[in-house]
């Protein structure tokens, strides 16, 4: 299982095409012909990763916005970011 460390530098894949639709952000991976719909926290994470952030920096940003402890937030992020990376939506340095 992929595990992110707090100093990992995260950024979104700028090659993705994106559009806003109602409350949703829709992404298209033009190479693969795959689509993703992001809502709520997922959408907010995508927006924050427009410029690179460390894993812990992202947690800090999210706890300001959502009623969540840093520990719970970090735990939820692990799974979500791993999926993003798997789908090619995320760069990790």
């Amino acid at each position: 299982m992929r595990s992110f460390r707090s100093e990992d530098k995260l950024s979104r894949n700028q090659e993705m095409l994106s559009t806003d639709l109602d409350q949703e952000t829709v992404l298209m991976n033009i190479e693969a012909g795959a689509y993703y719909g992001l809502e709520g926290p997922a959408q907010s994470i995508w927006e924050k990763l427009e410029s690179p952030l460390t894993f812990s920096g992202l947690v800090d940003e999210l706890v300001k916005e959502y009623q969540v402890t840093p520990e719970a937030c970090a735990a939820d992020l692990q799974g979500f970011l791993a999926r993003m990376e798997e789908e090619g939506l995320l760069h990790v340095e």
Partner: protein
Amino acid sequence: MSFHGYWAYGLRIHAELECPELPALQDESAEPDVTIHLLPAADHIPELTVSRRFHVQPGLFQLRVPETALYCVEDGKRIFITPFSGASMDKVRLFLLGSTLGALLYQRGLFPLHGSAVETPWGAMVFVGAQGVGKSTLAAEFHRKGYRLLSDDVCAVESTPDGLQVLPALSHIRLCPDAYDRLGTPQNARFDVDKFLFPMGDGYCPDPLPLCAIHILGNHEGEVPEYHNLRGMDRVVYLLGNLYRRRYLQGQDTQGALMRMAGEIAEKCTIATVSRRRDPESIHKLVEFLELEWAERFVATPLKEMV
């Protein structure tokens, strides 16, 4: 240099070859938006790449059609055609008016949908769907009933300060032979490469119209047609899935803008699936069905007064 003047997709076009399928330009003195150049025929034209017939990069598109021609489109403004020696000019024109103008639309940031468009009191109604699903047949039926068509095969959507507009293009309908037979073999039709081609005449709408709805045409088993509004991101997926020559999108410098436009179209207009039983005899019933659905769903807006 002598040229033929045409007016399609809201663009003034000056072409060195004759394209009877394109509506004529009324005023040939104004500067053209697009020029089409016919270069001398060549015996040999090198392949573009090993795997693909076409090449896309920002501001440049190339298409090589074996035994026909090489087409280059630059900056959404200039088209150069190098025919193969001995190529059929009907075929050269076919790939110019289809794929090549399609690539020009991408370069200009116009959203090219693969489908037909009909003028109605509610605005332009667009029909897209898989090849062979009956888009042109339905368009021909609307035409037969007295509706004007903006296009039978490709329609471009433009985002303007006044909203989304559908730009009319070819003033001919291309029909497969069985649809042609069903329409009672229109007399002024001629066979062109693989389909029957006939002019829309007065049934062509030369003016851009506000986009009302996009319909994805499909088949089902039931007796009664069904109209179903799409919601959520499906709308964007279907819009992009019905782009004309959608493989031309990747690599264009307009790709991001066109993706955002898909969101704008999805938000501002209706995107619906229309399914009906595949039965050539019932095409007129489908038109009546759609007329009733539209009257219930949309508010008719008075068409702009003719100047």
